[in-house]
């Protein structure tokens, strides 16, 4: 079965410093992986996705993530945090090879706080 573990429920960084949000997954051979962001009182927005192409994926707003199969990780990074990055971030795994009706599995989320 698929699963996603977001290792930190809350991360706090200073504005201008790097961001690292950690995600480990459990899935079959070639999963699809996503990072979504949820700003307060807003819907979910896709930041980036990995679907078996390049292992380093660049997304919107300067975020990127690297798929490391050997470590079963898909950590999200950004070189320099901005105040507007403060939000809830969800790591999501999908295994297209599975049948059934649960294509997406969400991590519990990491709340990112950015301090001025």
């Amino acid at each position, binding site marked *: 079965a698929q699963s996603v573990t977001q290792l930190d429920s809350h991360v706090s960084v200073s504005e201008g410093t790097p961001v690292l949000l950690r995600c480990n997954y459990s899935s079959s051979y070639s999963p*699809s992986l*996503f990072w*979504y962001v949820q700003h307060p*009182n*807003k*819907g*979910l927005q*896709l930041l980036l*996705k990995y*679907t078996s192409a390049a292992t380093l994926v660049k997304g919107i707003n300067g975020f990127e993530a690297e798929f490391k199969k050997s470590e079963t990780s898909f950590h999200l990074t950004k070189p320099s945090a901005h105040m507007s990055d403060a939000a809830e971030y*969800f790591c*999501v795994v*999908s*295994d*297209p090879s599975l049948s059934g*009706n*649960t*294509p*997406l599995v*969400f*991590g*519990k*989320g990491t709340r990112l706080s950015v301090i001025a």
Partner: protein
Amino acid sequence: SAVISQKPSRDICQRGTSLTIQCQVDSQVTMMFWYRQQPGQSLTLIATANQGSEATYESGFVIDKFPISRPNLTFSTLTVSNMSPEDSSIYLCSVEKGLGTEAFFGQGTRLTVV
């Protein structure tokens, strides 16, 4: 891509009543999903609604409590029946253009049951 309009955006309801949430998509999609996000929690899949078939519910969710309609390829409704304060959550509609591809979400319906 897909643009999803979800209504209402929020509501405060009395316990014992029911609320129907509407989800309208700007293009035809086969797979539509309904999620619940309880306060401070992640998303939990309630059910999958594919046009032309009965909705498929995840463990812990039943049709009597969360009846779903899917009359066509662009529209779906979720009803939260006989509400209690424990049903206070954000309910989100989602669509995918293909299994394992990007999911698009509505803005969500913030439900408070008093």
